[in-house]
Structures are given as C-alpha cells and as structure tokens.
C-alpha cells in the first residue's frame, strides 16, 4: 500500500514538473522585451524612485552613568522602513562642525533605531546625522546606492558622571545593610548577646572531624575552583582556618588539594598557622596543601583519584564550584565519607543536597566562619545580615499587596 502511494506521488510530482516548466518558459518568452532589455538602468530617475525617506526626530545625548566617552543616538524609523523594504540599513555619520565633513561612524540594521558612539572624546563637541540607505549589491559590489540623510543634530559632548544614578537604590540598600551590620557589631562589642539560629551543617563540623580522628583517616578540604578574587573562596579560606584548628587539636591530618596557585599559598599559611596555634607545628607538612591543576575537569579527575585511593573519612567541599561539583560529591559519597558542602552557586546546590550529608546553602557559607568562631563581633554581623533580610522581606510583602490591589508604583520604584 505504502509503495503504491509513493509511486502515485512520484508520478504526480513528475506531471506537475512537466506542466509548470514549459508554462514559465512561455511566460518569459512572451514578456515584453528580451532579457537584455529587461535589465534595469540605474539612472537618476531610478535612484530617485528608490531613495528612502530619512529617519526623523534624531536625538543625541550624553550616555548616562558612565565614565564619559559615549553618546547615545536615537531616532524614529524612516517611513520606508519595513513598509516598502526600501531601507536596508542606517548609517551614522559624525562631524566636528555642522557644515563640515561628516565621517561614517557605524551602522544599524533596518528596524533598529538606536546607536551608541563609544568613540566620543569627553568634552569634545560632535554633530551627528543618520542616513537611511537603500542599495543593491552583487558580490559585495554596489549596483546602485541611494540614501536619505536626516537633519544634523548637535553639538553634543560626552562627560563623566560622579554618581551612577541607575544604582541609587542599590546604594541605599547597601547603606542600610552596612549600617545594620555595623550597629550590631558595635552592640556585640558592648557586651550584647544575640540569638543565632542553629545551622546543622556547621554544627556537624566537629563531629565530622571527630569521625576522621576515630577512624584514623584523612580529612579532605576542597576549596572550589575559583581564585582568591572570589568572595566564596575567601569565605572558604576562613572556614578552612576553623576546621584546621579542630583537626590540629585532634591531631588528624587535613589535606587541601587546590586548583589555584594563590589559593595554595593562602591555604598553606592558614593550615600551618592552625597547627602552630594548637602547639603542633611539627605535625604540619607542606604537601598537605598541594596544587593539582587549574583545569576544571583535570582537577575533578585528580580529586576523584585521591578520594578513591585514599578513602578519606571526611570531605569538605566548600567554595565556588561549577559542573565538577557532582563528580566530586558523588565520588565522595561512593567511598562512604561524611561530606559537608557549601557554595553560593545556586545551580550546584541541588547536586550537593543530593550527594552530601550536609549542605551550607548560599548565605550559610558566608555565615559559617562567624558561626564557628563564636566571636561576638562576627556574630553581630550575622544579626545585621538578618536585618537586611527583614528589609527585603518587608519590601517583597508590601510589593505583593500593592500588586494585588493594582498599584504599580512599588514595582517601578524597586525596579528602578
């Protein structure tokens, strides 16, 4: 049945092809004039007929909130844009005097009505015009070319701003959060005590180290794959300091394989200091903190190899992780190590939750060092952080209520 249908279809297509081709040829033959005569002549009348109307309402303004050097241009599209397909692109022209020479600065495709001049020297005055372009090209050569130029606008000059107004509300929020943090730190200094909620993952650190001690095995501390310029790595180094002290007190070996040279130097100093602090400087060996590789998957492979061969009792995966997070965490899980993970990478959190015993989720990673230290000053900063959270919570709740009642003001206020 299918074969028959296919055969019938093929026959139908063949008949159609036979019928259409001669008909088209006939139509071409019967058209007035031959092929050579049909070729258009690009005389002034032809060009005039195909010249697009220029764009209008050209506005040139200094780009806001920058260090100077940029001017934003906007315009209303030529009436011929899209409508008749007579606009292929817009050319932006710039000059230093209204009546002088204008040079081409750049272009914008049809339908686009903005351009940023990023080569405007701060303080220098410029004039602009925008031309709507129509043309026909073959092999990158113009067969004909027609443009409709707008009026000249200017003079405009760029200047640097002293405050980025687009970040005004960020500034206010940060100011509030910082003020709250400093207030609570000062409060803690004066002897106030604060309630800090329990964080299971951090509470478990001592038990996890204790487990390694009891089993006589190593602890592995993996500080992620970012360098020292990442706050997550800094937070991880702070936690490493606390964990190393506990490990050194228990005389348990802690190994820190790293993927960045600067992290290696920092981590080595921290672990060494921890051993010295508890009176066991001789127990520390340089090779406990070692560099493996900068390469993401090379690092993951090396860590997996170390886990499988050395079977550590406890693994800390704390810092910035990417796709290698699950590769490491699952391998750690497969060897039966107790695993405490922490990261501020939202995409990696589900992997850690699935594969590790405890996970420090986002803010808990940053709170861990203060929480472990139990120092009032640091705990005060956590309380200030909570105040910031309360501010956001109030803003969200007020926003939801106002949106329910159809008041859009709050959303615009916050978004801006």
């Amino acid at each position, binding site marked *: 049945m299918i074969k028959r249908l296919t055969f019938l279809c093929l026959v139908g297509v063949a008949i159609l092809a036979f019928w259409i081709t001669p008909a088209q040829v006939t139509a071409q033959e019967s058209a007035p004039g031959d092929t050579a005569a049909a070729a258009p002549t690009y005389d002034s009348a032809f060009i005039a007929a195909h010249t697009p109307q220029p764009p209008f309402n050209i506005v040139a303004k200094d780009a806001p909130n920058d*260090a*100077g050097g940029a001017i934003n241009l906007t315009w209303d599209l030529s009436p011929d844009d899209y409508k008749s397909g007579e606009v292929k692109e817009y050319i932006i022209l710039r000059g230093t005097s209204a009546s002088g020479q204008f040079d081409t600065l750049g272009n914008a495709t049809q339908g686009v009505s903005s351009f940023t001049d990023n080569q405007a020297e701060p303080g220098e005055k410029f004039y602009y015009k925008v031309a709507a372009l129509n043309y026909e090209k073959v092999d990158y050569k113009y067969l004909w070319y027609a443009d409709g130029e707008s009026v000249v606008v200017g003079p405009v000059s760029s200047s*640097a*701003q*002293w*405050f*980025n107004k687009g*970040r005004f509300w*960020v500034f206010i929020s940060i100011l509030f*959060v*910082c003020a709250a*943090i*400093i207030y609570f*730190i000062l409060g803690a200094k004066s002897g106030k005590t604060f309630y800090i909620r329990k964080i299971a993952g951090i509470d478990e650190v001592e038990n996890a180290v204790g487990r390694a001690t009891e089993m006589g095995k190593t602890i592995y501390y993996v500080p992620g794959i970012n360098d020292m*310029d990442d*706050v997550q790595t*800094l*937070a991880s*180094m*702070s936690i*490493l*300091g606390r964990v190393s002290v506990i490990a050194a007190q228990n005389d348990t070996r802690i190994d820190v394989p790293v993927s*960045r*040279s600067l992290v290696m130097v920092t981590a080595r100093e*921290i672990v060494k200091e*921890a051993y010295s602090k508890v009176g066991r400087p001789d127990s520390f060996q340089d*090779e406990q903190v*070692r*560099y*493996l*590789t*900068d*390469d993401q*998957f*090379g690092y993951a*492979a090396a860590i997996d*190899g170390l886990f499988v061969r050395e079977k550590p009792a406890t693994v800390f995966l704390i810092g910035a992780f990417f*796709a*290698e997070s*699950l*590769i490491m*965490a699952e391998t750690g899980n497969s060897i039966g190590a107790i695993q405490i993970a922490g990261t*501020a990478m*939202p995409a990696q*959190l589900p992997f850690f939750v*699935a*594969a590790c015993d405890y996970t420090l*989720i986002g803010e*808990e990673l*940053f*709170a861990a*060092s*203060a929480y472990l*230290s139990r*120092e009032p*000053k*640091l705990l005060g900063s956590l309380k200030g*952080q909570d105040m*910031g*959270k309360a501010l956001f919570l109030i803003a969200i709740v007020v926003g939801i209520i106002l949106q329910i009642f159809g008041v859009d003001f709050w959303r615009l206020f916050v978004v801006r």
Partner: protein
Amino acid sequence: MRREIPIAITFIVGVVFALAYFIPHRPFGAFEAQFGDWFGIIGAFAIWLGALNLMKISFIKVFRKRPDFPFALIIIISFLVMVFFGFYEGYKGLFATPQFSYRDPGTGFDWMYKWVYSALSATMFALLAFFVASASYRAFRARNLEATLLLVAAFFVMLGRVPVGDLLTDWILPTGYTMSSWADWIMSVPNTAGQRAIMIGIALGLVSTSLRIILGLERTYLGGD
C-alpha cells in the same frame, strides 16, 4: 606588620572597589580594570609556584616509591612533554617563514591538546551524566513528604521537557494544561521563587562577609584569628 599591611591593603582596595561601583568618573571607574590587570599579573607569576609544587610533590612520591607513585610518574611525564613541545615549537615558530605559534594546527602541542587533553576533559564531563543518574535516584526516593514533593515535581519537569510528555497528555488535557505547561509552571514559579530567596541570602551574605573582611574583623584568611 605581617598582619597590618595586608589588612590595610584589603581595606583600601575594598573601599575603592565599592566606590568604583557607584562612581563611574575617573579615577574610580578605571580602578576595577586596573586591579583586574594587577591580579592577572600576580596570578601569572604565581602559576609557577603551583607548577613547581606539583613537580616537587610528584618527584618526592616517585623517589620514595609511595604506593601511588605511578600516577605521579604520569604527571611528571605529561607535564614535561607538554612543556617541551610548547617551548620547542614556540621557539621553532619564531624563526620559521612564515612564523607560526606552538598552538597552531599541525603542531605537536596542538595534536596533544586536541587528541589527548580535550578527549580526557570531555570524558570527565561525560561522566557527569552517570553521576546525575545515581544522585537523582537517591534524591527522588519518596522517604518523606519533601522527597515525595521533589519526586512529583521532577516527574512533571522531566516529562514536560521531552515531546513524549505532551504526546501523552494533549489528548486528555486542554491546551495550556499539558505536561510541558506544568513543567514550565514548576520551573518559572516555585523554582524561581526558591532560587530568588537563595540569591537574596547570597547577596546579603556577600555584603556582610565583604564588610567583615574590609573592616579587618575577619582575619582567618590571613592565617589564624
């Protein structure tokens, strides 16, 4: 002074960076890029520390015949071969006509990069699929209410992301309520809400940690309290 100087540098750089975020005017606006360059330069020199450390530890393992010394031997050989080809072909390319780089196609370095390094990296990345399967199996076991909710959500999202999900439901459910719509809703409403809550917490944690470090309250990263 061992502590004071790093703390002072941290304070100055931290404050300048914070100001640069809000002040685009020179010199603040340019600081971010400049500090980035400085960090890059320091990092480039520091890479030798890492490489030498790797070699030192690997050589110690080999000479002392530690249990896993064959792995250390592979590291040493791989490292030296790559370094040799990099320098040798880089040097050769400088005096060749036309000049070429050690990374150009056809060089031994490029051959090893393409057929050894890239293949090994891809293999490690591909392993992720199997790890996802085993982790999902554990995570989706309906042991309690939360895990059951996760299982149900995962069921809808996974089926909604493949054509067969709609194929199974579009004959019974009205348009807009098929499996893909359920998956989209789960991803864009409860999932986004959860992610945003975490993101807000992270942002506040970042501010708090940065402030502690800038003010010199958090010094553990310098070694000790």
